[in-house]
């Protein structure tokens, strides 16, 4: 395995792992607060039990996310010192602010988790809100740094000697806002559907009404996010088409520049020959998606030097996966919203579908990050610094890749195990309270 590939894989592994926790940290507090608010309003003890159960989940995932995030803050330097040398001063600002937001989140979560009987309910509820809001704020800051890699701003490059650094302009780069919104909504989508699916499964298995309440809350968040997401996705695609035409072309496996370009569905691109086999092309639609006009020209990969192409196959596949699952969730989410709006009970078939959907949001999200990151290759800072130039000179990257891989695998096993125990404990409590008032 090449040195560079090992470093990229380790980064992908760490980010791919961390992103799951980050999303849960962002979205889960809002689900929890919805249940909590319902409890404060209705005084229905089931909502309190649900809030408590979700809170435990938040605590566990937050802690694991916090430590894996600490590891990440060093990993940038451990793997990409050549990047950090330039990027540190320029995009350090969002990281510093992210640190502050994360700090606030850690404080608020301490108050929320251990303050049940120590602070008034309103303050307690508000501390939960601070957890959620600062989670979203942190995400915005971190994504601003990633946006800067796609759309570098706030300095003059001067052939590798950045001058005139303006950290604020770097933070507010062109890619930042849409990317951040896209990701935040994705977090709600992924977490909403995963939680709804989990509880749908538990409801089918055990029949406790608490689980049905949970499904409704989680699905509401997930479904609304799924309806909004395609609109943001479309805006993002248009922005990428304008800003990073190579990435856009790779997403679509679009080799030749043409007007009335067709949108490719499926298909296996071959980078060597520049041809796509087995795809379905919807004529004109790609031009429309890229520039809002069926006849506009869409740049193909062949416009660009071969050494500046991103890996086409991976980018294209990841993009298809993201869009595919996104559309599926849009459909199922709308169906769910419609049923809730009509006040109907969910059908057994619909609950089963929800169980199937547990991983879909996360798959779409991870695929989306593959599009962003692989699609930016071979650059680590778009058009300025190549990933290969910034990788650490130290040897044995594959050893640390292996080590990190094992660690994350171990953490996953432990988390699954612990969550399963949490559910068991919850069911014991539910069974007890059912005995108490038959």
């Amino acid at each position, binding site marked *: 395995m090449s040195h560079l590939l090992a470093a990229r894989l380790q980064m992908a592994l760490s980010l791919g792992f961390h992103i799951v926790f980050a999303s849960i940290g962002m979205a889960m507090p809002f689900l929890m607060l919805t249940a909590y608010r319902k409890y404060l309003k209705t005084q229905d003890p089931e909502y309190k039990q649900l809030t408590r159960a979700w809170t*435990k989940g938040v*605590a*566990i995932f*937050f*802690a*694991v996310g*916090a*430590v*894996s995030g*600490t*590891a990440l*803050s*060093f990993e*940038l*330097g*451990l793997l990409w*010192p050549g990047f*950090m*040398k330039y990027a*540190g*001063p*320029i995009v*350090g*600002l969002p*990281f*510093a*602010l992210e*640190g*502050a937001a*994360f*700090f*606030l989140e*850690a*404080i*608020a979560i*301490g*108050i929320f*988790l*251990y*303050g049940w009987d*120590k602070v008034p309910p309103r303050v307690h509820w508000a501390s939960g809100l*601070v957890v959620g809001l600062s989670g979203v704020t942190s995400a915005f800051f971190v994504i601003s740094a990633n946006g800067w890699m796609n759309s570098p701003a706030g300095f003059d490059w001067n052939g590798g000697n950045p*001058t005139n*650094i*303006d*950290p*604020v302009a770097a933070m507010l780069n062109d890619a930042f806002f849409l990317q951040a919104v896209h990701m935040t909504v994705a977090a709600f989508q992924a977490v909403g559907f995963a939680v709804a699916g989990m509880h749908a499964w538990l409801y089918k298995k055990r029949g406790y009404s608490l689980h049905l309440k949970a499904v409704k809350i989680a699905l509401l968040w997930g479904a609304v996010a799924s309806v909004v997401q395609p609109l943001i996705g479309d805006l993002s695609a248009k922005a990428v088409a304008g800003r990073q035409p190579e990435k856009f072309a790779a997403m679509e496996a679009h080799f030749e520049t043409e007007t009335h370009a067709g949108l490719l569905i499926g298909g296996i691109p071959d980078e060597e020959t520049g041809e796509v086999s087995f795809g379905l092309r919807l004529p004109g639609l790609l031009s429309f998606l890229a520039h809002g006009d069926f006849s506009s020209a869409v740049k193909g990969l062949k416009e660009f030097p071969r050494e500046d192409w991103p890996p086409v196959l991976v980018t294209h596949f990841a993009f298809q996966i993201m869009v595919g699952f996104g559309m599926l969730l849009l459909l199922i989410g709308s169906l769910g919203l419609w049923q809730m709006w009509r006040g109907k009970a969910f059908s057994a078939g619909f609950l089963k579908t929800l169980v199937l959907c547990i991983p879909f949001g996360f798959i779409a999200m991870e695929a989306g990050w593959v599009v962003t990151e692989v699609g930016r290759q071979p650059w680590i800072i778009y058009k300025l610094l190549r990933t290969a130039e910034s990788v*650490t*000179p*130290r*040897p044995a990257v594959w050893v*640390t890749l292996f*080590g990190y891989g094992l*660690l994350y695998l171990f*953490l996953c096993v*432990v988390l699954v195990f*612990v969550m399963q*125990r*949490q559910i068991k*404990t919850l069911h014991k409590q539910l069974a007890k309270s059912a005995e108490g008032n038959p």
Partner: protein
Amino acid sequence: MVLALLLFLALSLLLYALLGGADFGAGILELGRMGRMGKQEHALVQRAMAPVWEANHIWLIVAVVIVFMGFPPVYTTVCTFLFIPLMCVLLGIVARGCAFVLRYYDAAADHSGLYSGIFAVSSAFCTFFLGVLAGAMTFGGLDPSATEFGPAYLSPWLNLHCAFTGVFACALFSFLAALYLSGEAEVKALQEDFQRRAAYASIGMVVAGAAVFATQPGLVTKFIETPLALSCFFLATLLMAQLWYAFRYMKATRSVRFWTRAAGAGVVAMVMLGWYSVVFPAALVFREGVLTYYEAAAPLPVLKALLIALIVGIAVIIPALIYLFKIFKWEVLE
């Protein structure tokens, strides 16, 4: 501007040592118990740490952000040439954080012995390598021109001096934890037990501290020539004597318990301040030459932005942090 940032850096490292360090120390003390820890003691550590430990450890992230934005060559050099001890620290942080939270939330399980084991071992492991890192940054073994694996990636930290700074860090943090916990304990037997362990840890500090000096030629002269370091040393000794007196001859009333903890924190603060004053202004000491913070500093607009972000951040965080400690620590502090 550089000095203002260094003040923030020093402050966040100090708070990391005072708050996060005590958490590490609690784990090391558990390791000293070798699994023979009583239920009461277990509950005490849990109650003392659980609400605040995540906030305590974010001071490290603040310090890292200051270094990588404000002094990027320092960050990249450490990440490259000291990657082995750094990875060990990270491994420790991940393992102990997970073990700690799972021990609490998976309490129904009979695996809490396993979690405790991981928590204790990784606390000691992590603290040791934090000390190694601190020692290696100014030991003078860093050699960016080296091409062989050994001289480039091993010898900067694989030496007696760094090993002793690691041991010293372990002793220091367990000293601090024992003092804090003796103050939070409600049962007399536990209070005395923790006091005894604080005393053992302080012996460890003296021995390891002497070894740190003995294994680094030139450190003693530098130390003697730095008045601030000398006065820190003097004050720390004074505080230790006072602690010893309090344990020996005074009743553990509330105010005594408060002051012993304050004195323990004071000792750690003096150690940190003494350390800063000896190494300043060097950020890294190489085999040949020194990189000072002034040389490593990023351009002025960057430093300005960082300073503003820090001030804004601190203005938001400090009140929230005080509120957190007020809820969970006030009754024990009073």
